[in-house]
């Protein structure tokens, strides 16, 4: 691919160079500061989401032990937990946080293409969070309709937060989507247009590929949620009937007719399934780079990994109705969506194989980031395999809406991406802060989180096999659920509390290390990728000092035979370190012919 000269036009940098503290840290247009802002807001909402989960787990494990957890609060808590974690925490942290931090640095750019819009994005995101949190303080409280917000119940008596809560939720989502769109356009254009000399697409680290494809998914998927939210607002506030059929509320018919609840579900999941990959693909990318760096080995099968990301991204748009096998849609759809869903297993499995094969014959440094990355492989294998149950339409019949579903998606898009988040935060902490974190604390954090999470979710699958339904405030009296299920629930709750408290170790570590951590030397992990090659650590505004880097090779030249060290930075010229001879492999044959 030809070099695009746009990236060299440095004049624009002057325009948003900060002149005061406020411009530097508040109204900042520096992608790194915006990344930290995005990340901090996301982590703040994540803490609220985590707290809510501990509260409703207390009810499930020890019914009626907490006075204020009544059925109303329970449904509000599970709803807000779900929406916060999926959208406001994971999406914002991966795209707004890591996307912002990594893309310009890994692309050898000074910043995003549109720094002002980038700043606007983070403040709009904050606005959406404020609107969301406001719903805790309005009459009736936040919506308790479940995070899927299925109509018609969202706006009906009998659903917590059916008047103000749901309206605020929908407005907040719409505002969030505006923020994501501004950010997403920025990330995509930056990857396409702002790469430095010599950095072809097939030389990009997988982190950039994962975030890039996830961004494209977000740009296509979120509009479906936006229109659904707006249509539902119309139904709620203006009395339209997009999603509202004729229904009875407390004995009398409502003034709606002819709308389709299933239409909402299609729109929601047309967003909702790609959303899973909006979270997963950046995680795939980040973990690939952590694994490769600490195994001192190139990522195995780079090109297949890239194509797998693209294939998964594409397929993710034609599998959405596997969330709707028992929704009452025409059952013939089941044949199509089961087939497409299980096809996704192939590129996904390939990624897992390649991660493990990256370790094969490596020289694995078992430090904290690597612990989390390997923990991810374990939980992702588990969560991926249980997806084969739910995706296979007929197995979904008994398991849908049971704890099996909860266990599956928490394993695959909760625990797994969060383990990657920790791997990535520890891995890039020296770059972001210029300090090293405390290794022992980080490892303790890993053990408690990893083992605790498995103690939560492995048994939960078995509650699902048994048929215990999700979204029940209490199991109550049944003939088929033995009393031992309650003991299991209690043990799950205890594990959940352990895991939640263990996160304090993380916060203590990163805050303490900011000041007291060992000063990081340059490129402490010996990483080949570009973000570690900045003249300053942490990189200053503009990232690259006077001159933008030039890239001569891919991001994974580890343990190259004949090289001086066990890694060759991407910007090392061929005259210093030869490129790998043909006998081995040149991952991008055409790159050598590129216009460098």
């Amino acid at each position, binding site marked *: 691919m030809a070099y695009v000269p746009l990236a060299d036009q440095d004049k624009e940098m002057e325009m948003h160079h900060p002149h005061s503290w406020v411009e530097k840290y508040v109204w900042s247009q520096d992608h790194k500061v915006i990344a930290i802002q995005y990340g901090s807001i996301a982590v703040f909402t994540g803490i609220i989401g985590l707290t809510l989960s501990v509260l409703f787990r207390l009810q499930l494990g020890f019914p009626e032990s907490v006075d204020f957890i009544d*059925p109303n609060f329970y449904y509000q808590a599970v709803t807000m937990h779900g929406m916060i974690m999926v959208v406001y925490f994971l999406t914002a942290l991966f795209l707004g946080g890591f996307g912002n931090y990594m893309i310009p640095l890994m692309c050898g750019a000074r910043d995003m293409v549109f720094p002002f819009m980038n700043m606007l994005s983070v403040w709009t995101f904050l606005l959406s969070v404020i609107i969301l949190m406001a719903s805790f303080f309005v009459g009736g*409280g936040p919506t308790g309709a479940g995070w899927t917000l*299925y109509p018609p*119940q969202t706006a*009906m008596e*009998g*659903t917590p937060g059916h008047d103000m809560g749901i309206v605020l939720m929908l407005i907040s989502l719409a505002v969030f989507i505006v923020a994501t769109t501004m950010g997403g356009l920025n990330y995509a254009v930056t990857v396409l247009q702002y790469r430095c000399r010599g950095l072809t697409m097939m030389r990009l680290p997988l982190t950039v590929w994962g975030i890039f494809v996830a961004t494209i998914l977000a740009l296509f998927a979120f509009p479906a949620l936006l229109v659904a939210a707006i249509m539902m607002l119309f139904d709620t506030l203006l009395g339209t009937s997009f999603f509202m059929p*004729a229904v*009875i*509320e*407390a004995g009398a018919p409502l003034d709606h007719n002819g709308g*389709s609840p*299933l239409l909402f579900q299609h729109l929601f999941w047309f967003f909702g399934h790609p959303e899973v990959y909006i979270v997963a693909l950046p995680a795939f990318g980040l973990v690939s780079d952590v694994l490769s760096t600490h195994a001192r*080995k190139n990522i*195995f*099968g780079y*090109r*297949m990994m890239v194509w797998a990301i693209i294939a998964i991204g594409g397929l993710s748009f034609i599998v959405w109705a596997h969330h709707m096998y028992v929704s*009452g849609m025409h*059952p013939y759809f089941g044949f199509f969506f*089961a*087939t497409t869903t299980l096809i996704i*297993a*192939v590129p996904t*499995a*390939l990624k*897992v194989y390649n991660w*493990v094969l990256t370790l*094969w*014959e490596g*020289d*694995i*440094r078992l430090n904290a980031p690597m612990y989390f990355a390997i923990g991810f492989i*374990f939980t992702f*294998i588990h969560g991926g*395999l*249980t997806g*084969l*149950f739910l995706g*296979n*339409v*007929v*197995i979904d019949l*008994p398991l849908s*809406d049971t704890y099996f579903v909860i266990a599956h998606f928490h394993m695959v898009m909760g625990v797994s991406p969060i383990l990657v988040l920790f791997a990535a935060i520890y891995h890039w902490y020296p770059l972001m802060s210029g300090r090293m974190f405390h290794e022992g604390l980080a490892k303790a954090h890993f053990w408690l989180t990893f083992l605790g999470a498995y103690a939560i979710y492995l*048994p939960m699958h*078995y*509650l699902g*096999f048994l*048929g215990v339904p999700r*979204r*029940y405030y209490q199991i*109550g*009296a*049944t*003939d088929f659920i033995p009393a031992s299920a309650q003991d299991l629930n209690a043990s799950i709750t205890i594990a959940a509390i352990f895991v939640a408290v263990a996160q304090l170790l993380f916060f203590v570590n990163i805050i303490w290390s900011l000041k007291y951590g060992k000063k990081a030397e340059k490129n402490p992990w010996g990483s080949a990728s570009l973000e570690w090659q900045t003249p300053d650590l942490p990189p200053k505004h503009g990232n690259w000092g006077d001159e933008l880097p030039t890239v001569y090779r891919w991001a*994974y030249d580890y*343990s190259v035979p004949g090289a001086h060290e*066990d890694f060759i930075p991407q910007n090392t010229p061929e005259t210093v370190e030869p490129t790998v001879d043909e006998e*081995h492999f040149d991952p991008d044959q055409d790159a050598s012919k590129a216009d460098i």
Partner: protein
Amino acid sequence: MALAVVIFLLVIGSIIFHFASPWWFTEIAADWGSIDFTINLTFWVTGFVFVACNLFLAYCIWKFRQKEGHKAVYEPENHKLEIGLSAITTVGVIAMLAPGLFVWASFVNVPDDAVQIEVLGSQWQWQYRYPGADGQLGTADVLLVTEDNPFGVNPEDPRGQDDVVVNDPELHLPLGQPVQTLLRSHDVLHNFTVPQFRVKMDLVPGLVSYLWFDPTREGRFDVMCEELCGIGHFVMRGAVVVEPQADFDAWIAQQTTFSETQNMAAPNVAAGQAAYAACATCHGQQGEGNQALNAPKLAGQQPWYIERQIQHFKDGARGGDGDTYGAQMAAFANMLADETAVRNVAAYINTFPDTPAQPTVTGDVDNGYDIYDRNCAACHLDNGQGTWYNDSPKLAGMSDWYFVTQISNFRAGIRGLHPTDDYGEQMVSMATAMSDLEEIQDVAAYINTLQR
């Protein structure tokens, strides 16, 4: 090193957990062994992959951990290996998917000999409709729903006249007879699930969905709602009784048809008045109630609720162990010979003027409002009037001390746990919103403010 050992132990531990776990699928009660087969196939295939991948992972960590003088091998890719692994994965996926699709085809295509039964969901109860002698269900529309026609059956449709309507959450099915349940909702999404039958499907207002099964085992099984349908979701329970054809025939003969419910003779208020004489001693001439005699106010209460409760006292669903005053009431209820007598009395009580009862309970009204608004109003409504649709009695203006006693009884398991008191069972769960006597009194005090 430790990580390799732990991953190895987690794999072993998972296997042990699986075999030691008492939590597994319930014993199947429908002819869906093919679903269980697909599950087992998937379980063993994925289980094998789980063990193999993670043991290999653990081995790699152990074998290739960083060592002095050791260097990683430079091997960017190996197309043959990648294609080979993808091919094996594809074969495995096909092996699981293909049988799944065949079983799905048999789920989608309902056999010709299946009988159709309607399952109707509404917040938060199950009701059922059988086609009657003509074998066909009449048309129905949500806009035709009234207290007298809770199914919304079209009165003009001749096919619907003989439909058997079961206004009770217990479904009866003959053993070995394939059944197609047509699923309909009057308000929000619900989901009809019987874990032992393996199949489930959502009820969607505005359309009719379906599922089918062939019950193969006698017994009484739980019906669960498995689609979030509001605050009462977790108490939306029912039951299905699978019984021999003869028992089923006897049961269905006792049920009423749609036309019978429409043409029922008006209750005889005069007869009700005569019968009420026995009640008046305690409940008062005008049903105003008498706390000294533990008799609650009846005037203003909805007739369907009075009828149901008298029936419960007659059946022994109320007035059992621990409920002394209920036991007294049961003796009087048994003086009413049959359903007609019960209807007559309820109709007579309905003629009383409704003067709000004197408040006797005090409490924190604000806290009471908070609890009521969040948890009770969904059924009993903001104004405390209750509605037949939610099976919720009137609370406002009724005896507040009786409310306190009854909620305490629900909390103590004295009321609502009898197997035939399905609506009481819901209150057992919902009453947990009030954690102690003080909160119950708070709610009672708030309800007292609703009298006007």
